[in-house]
């Protein structure tokens, strides 16, 4: 007897599940988290649109981070170009070619972890596939989510992609050296829009060209390692 709708069909059995559909990704992310904790490394999930300047942020970080041991994984649909760029500035890197998948998931990151070219690291940067939508919904086991948003993308992006900005522990506003050429871009408006989609956002204005914000970014990373950084308050949602 169907209990839920009373339809009287003797063969219908309702089964209550109430589980996250991505539960198996969550489990693998938890396993990755153990890897990171075991190796004492801070893992950053760096997300943003195609061309937002994610790889440029990491190149700049390599030049300015002193003694810290950095490593990277770069997710890309078709090439390993970003991994090559990072190796060129001295960051041991593995490219993850996703084929048709528009995001990294915990399984892809785990596979890359096991053939990574490093032993110990202070910071592991996981450059996600350039995409402002779905990378946000797959937990990789990261310590923190960072979203790069370049000033040329327009100040309305937080309102159009609230899912991505909601999960950001830090928003890096990149390419700020270009602001003098962008009379239509009002930073105040961008800050206001961010405040409507993510509570108490931490924001750093950054430029790989002028070096603005690099110190602050590195200080924020160091704070993560010692547990001082993060958002103004605990972030996380109803089911995360």
């Amino acid at each position, binding site marked *: 007897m*169907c209990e*839920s709708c009373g339809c009287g069909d003797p*063969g*219908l*059995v*309702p*089964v*209550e*599940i*109430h*589980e*996250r*559909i*991505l*539960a*198996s*990704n969550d489990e693998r992310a938890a396993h990755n988290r153990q890897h990171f904790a075991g190796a004492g490394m801070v893992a950053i999930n760096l997300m943003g649109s195609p061309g937002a300047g994610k790889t440029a942020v990491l190149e700049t970080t390599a030049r300015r981070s002193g003694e810290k041991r950095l490593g990277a994984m770069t997710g890309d649909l078709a090439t390993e170009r970003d991994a090559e760029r990072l190796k060129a500035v001295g960051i041991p890197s593995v490219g993850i070619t996703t084929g048709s*998948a*528009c*995001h990294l*998931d915990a399984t892809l990151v785990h596979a890359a972890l096991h053939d990574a070219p490093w032993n110990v690291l202070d910071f592991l940067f996981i450059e996600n596939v350039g995409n402002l*939508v*779905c990378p*946000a*919904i*797959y937990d990789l086991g990261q310590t923190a989510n960072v979203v790069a948003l370049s000033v040329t993308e327009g100040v309305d992006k937080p309102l159009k992609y*609230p*899912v*991505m900005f*909601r999960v950001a522990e830090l928003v890096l506003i990149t390419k700020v050296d270009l602001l003098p050429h962008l009379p239509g871009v009002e930073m105040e408006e961008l800050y*206001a829009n961010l*405040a*409507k*989609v*993510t*509570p*108490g956002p931490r924001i750093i204005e950054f430029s790989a060209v002028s070096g603005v914000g690099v110190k602050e970014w590195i200080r924020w990373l160091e704070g993560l390692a010692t547990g001082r950084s993060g*958002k*103004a*308050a*605990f*972030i*996380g*949602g*109803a*089911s*995360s």
Partner: protein
Amino acid sequence: MHEYSVVQSLMQRVEAEALAHKARAVDRITVGLGELSGVDPELLLSAFELFRQMVPLCRNAQLQIREIPAAWRCRVCDTEISKGEVLRCKICQKPAQLACGDEILLDRIELEVP
């Protein structure tokens, strides 16, 4: 389009459940989707149409989506923050937290059991 990979995970879970119950077929699948889940209901439905053809037990299954609106509340005094406002409580000045709206849930399935 990540709706395909979400449907794939869904189908694996549903199929395993159906086999465990020795079901003849899956009749209905109910999924809860939050407004801020990042999963689009229409796209999920079209991905489902495609995938159910490949899972014999689900060939005639219906996918029902329960849409869950997002709600932000103050973590201190529980006041709700209206849509489109700054996510900070006007009374306590504390950042709000999401009370609901990021769910991607398998609620229940209905099985035809011999």
